[in-house]
């Protein structure tokens, strides 16, 4: 048997399979790094696909500052960026407590690791909660809009350029609106599953009596949405408006392109799922720290490995923040 073993004369060298491990990292840590590599490529594929769709509709994309402008306990106040900036700080700070836990682990200080892991878990939980609130606002919508036959979203403004909500535009008509149900045929049509607050006829009737204007999805060269004149507005509302849109879901989005909502739900959802799993894994490690598993092992490397995952979640958020809210 020994005769079949190939001798290369490089056995002592690292590249000849020598005793020294070439990457100088434990198997678990190295594999965590390669998992993160592949996960980073998944996220960048999502974000690049978002970039593709945005470049495709570069002159008609929703303006993030108009979409995400809510802040808790400040109802009706236009506060773009503040809330997401707060979320970013929460996540960065939970990254700091995580790295402090790793550092305390290197020094074998069990009580400090416990404290910092606990703070990291709290930070992660607050972040997931904040994201849920952001989703709620996005799904609920604010002003409402009308969709044209071509699938374009048009919004209402008054003469001062201020947005106008649908309930100001609509004129209540004595009509009998019936919710479509699957048992009445066309079971595959889920479009009219729930009725909007006002029908398209009520919006049309109300718009004739008002002096409001229509704002289209098209962006002008300053990046602001195009505002039509009163005559053009009337023509669009009378001839093209087909549906009332309230809030955002996977098929319609009152802020503009449905793709914007799709990517927002998918990317922040996938990121939020990572945060959630990160919190769960952190909780498991937290209890292992408390019961002294790593003290007996004489190594807190497990804390370091979940730390890598947790920082990665923060790293992804940095990019999501840039491409959804800033750029």
């Amino acid at each position, binding site marked *: 048997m020994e005769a079949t073993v190939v001798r290369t004369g490089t056995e002592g060298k690292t590249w000849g399979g020598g005793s020294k491990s070439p*990457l100088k990292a434990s198997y678990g840590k190295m594999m965590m790094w390669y998992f993160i590599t592949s996960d980073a*490529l998944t996220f960048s594929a999502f974000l*690049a696909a978002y970039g593709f769709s945005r470049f*495709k509709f570069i*002159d008609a994309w929703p303006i993030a500052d108009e979409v995400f402008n809510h802040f808790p306990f400040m109802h009706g106040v236009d506060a773009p960026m503040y809330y997401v*900036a707060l979320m970013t700080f929460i996540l960065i700070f939970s990254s*700091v407590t995580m790295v402090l836990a790793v550092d305390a682990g290197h020094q074998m200080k069990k009580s400090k690791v416990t404290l910092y892991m606990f703070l990291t878990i709290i930070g992660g939980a607050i972040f997931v909660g904040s994201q849920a609130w952001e989703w709620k606002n996005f799904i609920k919508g604010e002003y409402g809009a009308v969709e*044209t036959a071509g699938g374009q979203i048009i919004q209402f403004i008054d003469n001062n350029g201020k947005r106008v909500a649908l309930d100001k535009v609509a004129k209540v008509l004595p009509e009998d609106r019936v919710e479509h149900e699957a048992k009445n045929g066309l079971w595959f049509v889920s479009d009219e599953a729930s009725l909007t607050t006002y029908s398209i006829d009520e919006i049309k009737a109300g718009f004739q009596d008002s002096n409001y204007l229509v704002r289209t999805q098209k962006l002008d060269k300053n990046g602001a949405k195009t505002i039509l004149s009163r005559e053009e507005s009337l023509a669009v509302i009378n001839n093209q408006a087909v549906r009332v849109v309230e809030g955002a879901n996977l098929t319609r989005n009152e802020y503009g392109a449905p793709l914007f909502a799709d990517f927002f739900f998918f990317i922040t959802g996938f990121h939020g799922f990572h945060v959630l799993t990160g919190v769960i894994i952190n909780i498991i490690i937290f209890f292992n720290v408390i019961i002294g598993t790593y003290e007996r092992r004489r190594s807190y490397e497990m804390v370091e490995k979940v730390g890598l995952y947790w920082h990665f979640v923060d790293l992804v958020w940095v990019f999501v923040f840039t491409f959804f809210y800033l750029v």
Partner: protein
Amino acid sequence: MAHEASTHDKHSPLKRIWTVFAILSVITLVEVILGIIKPESLVKTTLIYMSLLNWIFIVLTIVKAYYITWAFMHMEHEAKGLRRSVVWTVIFLIAYLTFILLTEGDYVFEVYKNGYIAWDF
């Protein structure tokens, strides 16, 4: 171990952590302030298909990513082989993918704009 070597040089790990936290916070703050006021001179200047402001955001994001990976994830203390196999792979593939998809997206935009396709009727 690599991290033990780092505790003995002139920067203690704790000091490094708080310095990096300060850097990340300042960068985020700058991004948020720029995002709120959107200086007109930066928005109007275009550099390679994008406004200068967007380029600033992207560069600041990459700086943040560098600090998170190098300091918080301790990439600076890993072996050269591990560092390169992770960082070079990711940077190359992301740059490639982004270039291909954004070029294609821009092409589709041109087709919609100049072609004979009625999509807003």
